[in-house]
């Protein structure tokens, strides 16, 4: 079986990620597909670039899985995050969660994307018509201590 957590420089295929969580005991699979949108806070994105620290990103995906299993032992998780240059509507991340019951599949999936935005070392560079910028919490001024970094609230 393919690894359930991946960083990929190739276009993502949603079904490849979903297949990893299919189970005879799953009545529900939720999939989150993060896509590149054109407008953020009124500014027009031309393209995006994602960079990752792959070895650590995979470890953080595994940590998210452990945290998820503490809350929802029956849920199964698979995540692939894209790196490289992406155009509008391209897929940046796919998260698939299966569970016997649907409520947990929604909750665990949303938990996973929230935690990805907190602890997984991946960076996005916006390319606008008039320039570029590495996105992050520009106001962040407290280094990571015991807990998680502050959550990004921009999407």
């Amino acid at each position, binding site marked *: 079986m393919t690894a359930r957590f991946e960083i990929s420089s190739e276009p993502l295929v949603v079904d490849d990620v979903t297949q990893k969580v299919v189970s005879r005991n799953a009545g529900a699979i939720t999939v989150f597909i993060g896509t590149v949108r054109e407008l953020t806070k009124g500014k027009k994105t031309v393209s995006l670039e994602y960079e990752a*620290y792959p070895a650590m990103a995979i470890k953080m995906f595994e940590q998210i899985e452990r945290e998820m299993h503490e809350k929802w032992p029956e849920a199964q998780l698979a995540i692939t*995050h894209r790196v490289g240059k992406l155009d509008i509507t391209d897929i*940046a991340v796919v998260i698939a969660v299966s569970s016997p019951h649907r409520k947990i599949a929604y909750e665990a999936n949303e938990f996973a994307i929230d935690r990805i*935005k907190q602890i997984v*070392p991946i*960076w996005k560079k916006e390319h606008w018509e008039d320039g570029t910028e590495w996105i992050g919490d520009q106001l962040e001024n407290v*280094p990571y201590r015991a807990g998680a*970094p502050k959550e990004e609230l921009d999407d």
Partner: protein
Amino acid sequence: MINVLLFAHLRETVGEEKLVIEAEKMSVSDVKAWLEARYQLELSTVMSAVNEEFAMDHTIVQSGDVIAFIPPISGG
């Protein structure tokens, strides 16, 4: 020797994604000071990871370890 990984704007500012420091043992703070002395960087608020685990300023980095600086993340 200590391996230093740089990402995103830190990588672009330094112009390298990897640096090597010839040292046996340093704290994360020491590595930050070493980088700040050589490049136009402000690292006091930047997170770090030692061997792929988040670390503290007082964490000790040994020869052979990998220390990575983690600017505010924006994946997902």
